[in-house]
């Protein structure tokens, strides 16, 4: 059984890049273009996802709100959530952590690092 990972980013190129890497590593990837879309994807998915990777700055609904919203759902109370940040934005990280994020990754990252972190979180 493939594990499902949701990637939420308003940048198509990053969605594709991360998505491709994860798919090649044997995961099933779902994509959302902003927080709101990410929630919709989760709601309409008939399976559960094992990991959510989300950007922070996004139109409509940003990453922090996405995390808060996801944590409200009992199914996703404990699912790991990784935030993507561009530089070390200390306050944002803390804010994300408070909202319930599991950790973060700083862009740019290489495929190897991404897979390592993903593996660490969901095995």
């Amino acid at each position: 059984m493939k594990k499902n990972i949701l990637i939420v980013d308003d940048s198509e190129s990053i969605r594709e890049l991360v998505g491709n890497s994860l798919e090649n590593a044997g995961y099933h990837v779902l994509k959302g273009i902003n927080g709101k879309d990410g929630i919709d994807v989760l709601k309409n998915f008939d399976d559960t996802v094992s990991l959510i990777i989300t950007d922070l700055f996004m139109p409509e609904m940003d990453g922090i709100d996405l995390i808060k919203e996801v944590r409200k759902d009992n199914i996703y109370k404990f699912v790991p959530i990784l935030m993507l940040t561009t530089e070390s934005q200390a306050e944002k990280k803390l804010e994300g952590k408070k909202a319930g994020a599991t950790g973060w990754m700083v862009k740019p990252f290489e495929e190897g690092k991404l897979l390592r972190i993903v593996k660490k979180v969901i095995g």
Partner: protein
Amino acid sequence: MENLHSVYLEEAEDLFSKIEESLLLLEKSPDDSSLIAEVFRSMHTLKGSSSMYGSSKVADFVHNLETIYDQVRGHEIELSQPIIEATFKSLDHLKKIVQAPDIPDPIDAKYHEKLTAEILGLLEDYSGEIAPAKKEVNHSKCTYFISFTPDKAIFSDGTNPLLLIDELKDLGPSRVYTSIDKRLKSKSYDPKKCYTSWNVILATEDDVNPIKDVFIFVEETSKIVIEKISDVDLLGLSEFTSQLPPNDLNAKLPALKDFKKLVKAVPAEALTRSAEDSLHEDEVDGQEEEKLQKSHGKEEAITSIRVSADKLDELMNQVSELVTTQAGLSLYAENNFDPTLNAIADNVEKLSRQLRDIAFEMTLIQISNLFRRFNRVTRDISTQLGKSVKFITEGGETELDKKIIDSLADPLMHLIRNSLDHGIESREERVKMGKPEKGTIKLSSYYSGAKVYIQIEDDGRGIDAQKIREKAIANRLISKDDQLSEREIYDLIFVPGFSMAKSVTDISGRGVGMDVVKKNILDIRGDITVESKIGQGTKIVLGLPLTLSVIDGLLVKVEATSFVVPLGDIKKCYEIKRDELSNDFNELITLEEDKIPYLDLRKEFLIKDENPPEKASIILLENEDNKIAVCVDSIVGEYQAVLKPVGKYYRNQEFVSGATILGDGSIALVLDAYKIIARKIVKQKKSA
């Protein structure tokens, strides 16, 4: 990777135009915080994806820009005109360098530096540092001491501490010491808690950050100590490793100070030798990495669903061929009275129609991207001319065939330039006339019937019909006695060699242009009309077909020759007796008490027959206010015509826009209502 890169480039393009659009709006309302946030977010996204795609120069450059807008967002600095100007310049520069992020052109590279300096100069707390500090890459290994005492409740987060240790081990050679809390053996032991802690000696090329990253999820709850104990790879030195204590679960963990003591005991000679070794090792590593990257490239799976325009064109072509072939099948089935074949033919017809609709939809794109382009042009030109102009777009969501949008760029650009140059008055002039100081140009688009209309409206000085008339007489385009309606006078603008500009400027008024505009529009089966009121403004309307490749038409016949008339131009059909035509001398026919000029295809195409049928069909074409009747022998019915261009010998013909292949393999010419009407009207004028 290749296809992903094109996704990145396309995204960058989108972001550029988004930023441009927001900037233009910001110029008008510099305090709009949502716009500033929009610009900031777009830059942020651009920076993120650029860095992911390896364009660190682009990313760094955008980073500086982004910092400006971050400061604007935080009200640290004000959004000034110099900032906006610099951003526009930067966007132009970025558009260039995203294609070749290494900036191979030395002129560009110099400009890059200059712009970077300019942007940094705009920052609040600019300290003279150029570009954010780069991470120093340390190629030789260092040795770290890491102590990790997880929170006892770590398991309840779902974190497996062993995975963290494994990850540390991935960073380089390591020694791991584990110790278990004594309580593990006592009765108060809680199996849901973690009683283990680790001390690790790690030799790695990385700096401290990747090590910190390992613990990002647990750093707040667990006790973590990371300290560099040596600048060389101690684990590669037997002098050091031989002194290391054994890993004993029950013993006390060797602490930082114990290791530091061991480090001091290592002879200096061994340390320098190790440093040299690690340099050598690097070279080998480098080669291996390259190999690894290569093999990765091969595994890349194609998951992108972006399709190149060429492939869509090809699809559209093939579908057109399929529709033609299917028409042949339907015809054959009809003539052979085979019910099975008929049913199959019906099905194929249905399927190919659906397929055609789907393929057609795929080739439609929104016109907003094209509109957005003019935002910038309008701004640049109006600044150049010293005029202030508000540019409004409406109906950007209207969808059109990609080919049509492509061929609209030039004509629209020309029309907008004209409006800016000749239409909108100078500031002083406007104030004098009691108009708002700022001129307005509105570019809008909407559907009506089977057509899409694009309108360019300005509130400028309008076009003086009298002046056009005078000029046309002077240029011998018309004679003094000619009576022309207002619309006909405006149409003179489109005659080759006609220019109204008093002076030739950089922007427009070279006397070529409007005729080319008209030709371009006619080429895509569109039409163009001008309405104007002196002192109030000008409105130019382009009427365009939805698509270039397939049209809904009416199949008609004259003797054995077939013609297709575009359905969109047909108002009504009548049946008459042929005698009614021959009784008429001025090529006018009375339809519903209206005298309408007519065109007999039999005559025009020199189709001769001694005994033409008694009855004839009249098709009434209407284009704007002009009507014309076309006389044919009979009407066959509706027909989906796949348009094929006619050869170059027909390029100058007067009323055919293309040809189509019918089901039986014969060819039908597709009539161009606009050209027919235009020609007939000219003829009428001449004979009158």
